[in-house]
Structures are given as structure tokens and as C-alpha cells.
């Protein structure tokens, strides 16, 4: 019997089919993709220079900044900055009074600068490839915060990492290789996180909210803007919601209609969670839709503040144990 020195193409094909089938069923087969990343990452980073240059050039021609040229967003940003200053001032005073300052000094966070070096090959998932990985101690499943927050606030971040684009929450790390990580955007269909919805009122506006009275009964309150400045105020307690991506928007399902959520309201990460510091802006309500099944509930659609389609620089925050 004559032995073949070289396997035929049919045998090779059969072997490859078995390999694919094994990869499909074996848990943890993603390591192969992670192993291939060191080849792909530098090349993708080179390729990414093309769209970034195109966007920059287009912005130069259009004579605009990369930030969203939305007046209301700018106004909202001014409001939030003003609010943040007030909060910071109050917090500093409290810290001095209570001696918390010395305790907070023990907490440290490391800011990891990362760039988006590509998208996934198939646009059916809203994910991006980052050029920072486990070699820089980035870990999957962790949290997202802004550079501003980390620089200006002395808040400790427990275990977990966050990824940010400019000052907005853009997503979280879901997969991590040695030199790269996969960023899941807030609009990805599998994205899900608790969040807070803030009802806002602008100058000259009023809105009706329901609050809990001292005896536990609900009462109707009409809140007006104080007129002290052009910025919008948050009114009432924020609403705890579950934010989910739907490919285009961040969607908040089954929000009680009595909250009267309306266009322009603000979505932030949930401050009640231990690992997400308060105040990370995600986006702004663009529309609400009454639920067909349950008329007492609405579905709220939120447009992310960050321009996710042109995301190029993000910051991964790594908490460092004191």
C-alpha cells in the first residue's frame, strides 16, 4: 500500500470543518481570536489613520469642531458643568468638615489612554477594537467613566474599568486580549446597564411631577425653573431604569408613564451602583412611545451624546488598589 506524503485538499478541508465545529462547541475558543490580535492590531491602527484623516479634513473644511454642534447639548453641557461645580464645592466643604479628605486620598485610579483601531468586520454588532489590552491591565466587563471625573474628583473606583469617549459614557470592555480589547458601545444590542433618568426643566418652563408625601401618599407638585441662569435644572428624584442598546438608540423599556419623561431629559449612569460614580452622562431623550401592551408604561429612546460612529479616542480607567 502506498502512503501519500501530502494530504489531499479534501482531507485538509475535512480537518478544517472539524476545527470549525470544535471551535463552535468548545468553551473558551475565543483565545484563538485573541492570539491573532497582535497581527491585526498594528495593521488596523495603520488603516484607521485613513478614516480619522478624512474626518479631520472634513471637519476642517466644514469649519467645525468634532463635538456635536447641537445647541441644546451645549446648553446642557454648560448646565452640568455648573451643577458639577456646585456639587464639588459642597463636597469639598463636607470633606473638610468630616475629615473625609484624608480617607479619600488613599484611593487611586489609573487613566489608560486608548484609541479605536477598528470596528468588527461585520456591522451587525456595535463594537470597536481598542489598542489597549491585558498587557496594560485592562479587564473585560468593567466600568466606564470620564477623564474629567477622574481628574477633578477624588472618587475611588472599585474593581472594574470604564471606557469613555470625550466626557460621555460610550460603553464597556467586553473582551480583552494582550494588546487589544473589544469595546461594546452603549447602542450595542447586547448592552445593558442600570442608569438614572433625570427630568429637566429649562428657563421659563415648568413641569408636573409626583412625589411621596411625609405620610407616604403621592402628591402632585408643579416645579418651575428658578430663573437664576440659562441652564436647565434636574427636578424630582431621578428614575432608576435599565438602559439597553437597540443598535441605534439606548432604549429604556417599561418606564412608568406617570413620570412624564419627555424629550430633552438626561440619562446618566446609576449613581447607586458602587462601581459607577455618579454623573456619567450617556445621552438625551429624543422620544417616548407609549407601550402597546401596558398603557401605563412608556418606552424611552435616548440618543448618546458621544458621536459613536466617529469614535477615535477613549479612556479606560483602571482602579488601583490602595
Amino acid at each position, binding site marked *: 500500500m502506498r502512503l501519500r506524503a501530502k494530504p489531499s485538499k479534501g482531507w485538509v478541508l475535512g480537518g478544517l470543518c472539524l476545527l470549525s465545529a470544535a471551535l463552535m462547541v468548545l468553551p473558551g475558543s475565543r483565545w484563538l481570536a485573541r492570539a491573532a490580535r497582535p497581527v491585526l492590531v498594528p495593521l488596523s491602527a495603520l488603516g484607521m489613520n485613513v478614516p480619522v484623516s478624512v474626518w479631520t479634513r472634513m471637519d476642517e473644511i466644514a469649519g467645525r469642531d468634532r463635538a456635536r454642534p447641537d445647541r441644546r447639548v451645549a446648553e446642557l453641557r454648560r448646565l452640568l458643568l455648573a451643577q458639577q461645580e456646585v456639587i464639588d464645592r459642597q463636597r469639598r466643604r463636607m470633606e473638610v468638615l468630616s475629615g473625609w479628605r484624608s480617607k479619600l486620598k488613599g484611593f487611586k485610579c489609573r487613566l489608560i489612554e486608548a484609541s479605536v483601531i*477598528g470596528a468588527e468586520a461585520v456591522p451587525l454588532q456595535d463594537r470597536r*477594537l481598542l489598542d489597549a489590552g491585558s498587557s496594560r491591565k485592562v479587564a473585560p466587563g468593567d466600568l466606564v467613566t470620564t477623564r474629567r471625573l477622574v481628574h477633578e474628583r477624588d472618587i475611588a473606583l472599585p474593581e472594574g474599568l470604564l471606557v469613555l469617549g470625550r466626557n460621555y459614557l460610550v460603553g464597556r470592555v467586553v473582551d480583552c486580549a494582550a494588546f487589544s480589547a473589544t469595546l461594546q458601545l452603549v447602542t450595542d444590542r447586547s448592552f445593558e446597564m442600570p442608569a438614572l433618568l433625570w427630568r429637566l426643566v429649562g428657563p421659563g418652563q415648568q413641569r408636573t411631577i409626583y412625589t411621596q408625601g411625609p405620610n407616604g401618599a403621592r402628591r402632585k407638585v408643579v416645579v418651575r425653573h428658578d430663573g437664576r441662569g440659562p441652564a436647565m435644572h434636574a427636578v424630582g428624584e431621578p428614575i432608576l431604569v435599565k438602559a439597553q442598546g437597540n443598535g441605534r438608540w439606548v432604549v429604556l423599556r417599561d418606564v412608568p408613564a406617570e413620570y412624564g419623561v419627555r424629550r430633552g431629559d438626561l440619562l446618566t449612569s446609576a449613581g447607586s451602583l458602587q462601581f459607577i460614580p455618579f454623573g456619567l452622562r450617556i445621552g438625551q431623550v429624543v422620544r417616548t412611545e407609549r407601550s402597546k401592551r401596558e398603557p401605563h408604561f412608556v418606552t424611552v429612546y435616548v440618543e448618546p451624546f458621544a458621536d459613536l460612529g466617529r469614535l477615535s479616542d477613549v479612556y479606560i480607567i483602571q482602579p488601583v488598589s490602595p
Partner: protein
Amino acid sequence: MIRWIYFLILVLLAVVVQTSVVPVVWFRTPLGYVGPELLAAVAVFVALHVRSRVEAALAGWTLGFAIDLTLSGPGMGLASLLYMAASVGVYQLREAVFHERASLQFILSLLFCLFVYELWTLWGLLSGHLSRPVAGGQAVLAAGLAVYTAVLTPLVCRVLKPFQKLLIATPPGRGRR
């Protein structure tokens, strides 16, 4: 016969362009992004020009595996199998038709992408990785991806045509179809 070194370079180039440059031409819809899939267009080109079904399958598997390597989440290995099957399908279909026509490249690419990405979505649904509404949205997006890719496939074929001899060796003494 496929010249594998050149073919692998083409695959690498296609992956890099697909993940870095192609997102520029994605457009947003109420359901999500719709964009072309360059590797599918390359697979159609190769399947239209290789000399055997096994080679078409091998090339398809390689391109699908490249897609697998760039994705995150579950389902590693699925794209390579689907690409392989779709490439064989294109190879079979080409026998019945003249393969240099742009309209044919459009149709074959459309069928290729619909086959790959609708089955991929179905797998996600059946394996429990996608909920029913998410899979529904993804199926519509996959159809958009198929149309977009099909529109660009004749262009990709035209770009690759001058490199055909570099990618696929013609055995001596055999003329072109």
C-alpha cells in the same frame, strides 16, 4: 489552483480594510448600522474563478475564519463554515451562467451574504445568544448588508480582476472558460 501566499496576503488586506476603512461607508438606520462586507465580495470573486469546488471551499473557509478572528462574543467557527458552504454554492451556480457579468456578481453576492448572515442570525437565536426581537432586527440588518455588499461586489471584482493570475494559477495547456 490558488496561490496561497498571495491569497493570504489578500485576506489580511481585506480584513484590515474591512475593520478600519470600510466603517466610513456604513450608514445608520433606525435598527443599526448597515455596511458592506468586503470579504464576502472577495469570496464571490474567488469562487467564480477557481478551478475546483474544493478550492472554492478552502478559500471560503479561510475568508470566513478571518471574519471569525475579528469578531467578539460567541460563535467562533461559524463564519468559516458558512463561508465555506456559501462559496461552494457560488461555485456550483457559476457553472450555469456566464460569470463576468456585473449583474450576476450582484446576484451571487446577494445570495452569498443572505445565506451567511441570515443563518448566522438564526444560529444566534437558536443558541440563545440573541433574543427574538434582537434577532429580528439583526435579520433585517443582514439583508441590508447583503444588498450593500452585492452593490459593491462588481466593483471589487473589477479591482481584483488584474490580480487574478497572481491569485489563481491557470494550469498549463488549459484555456480560460
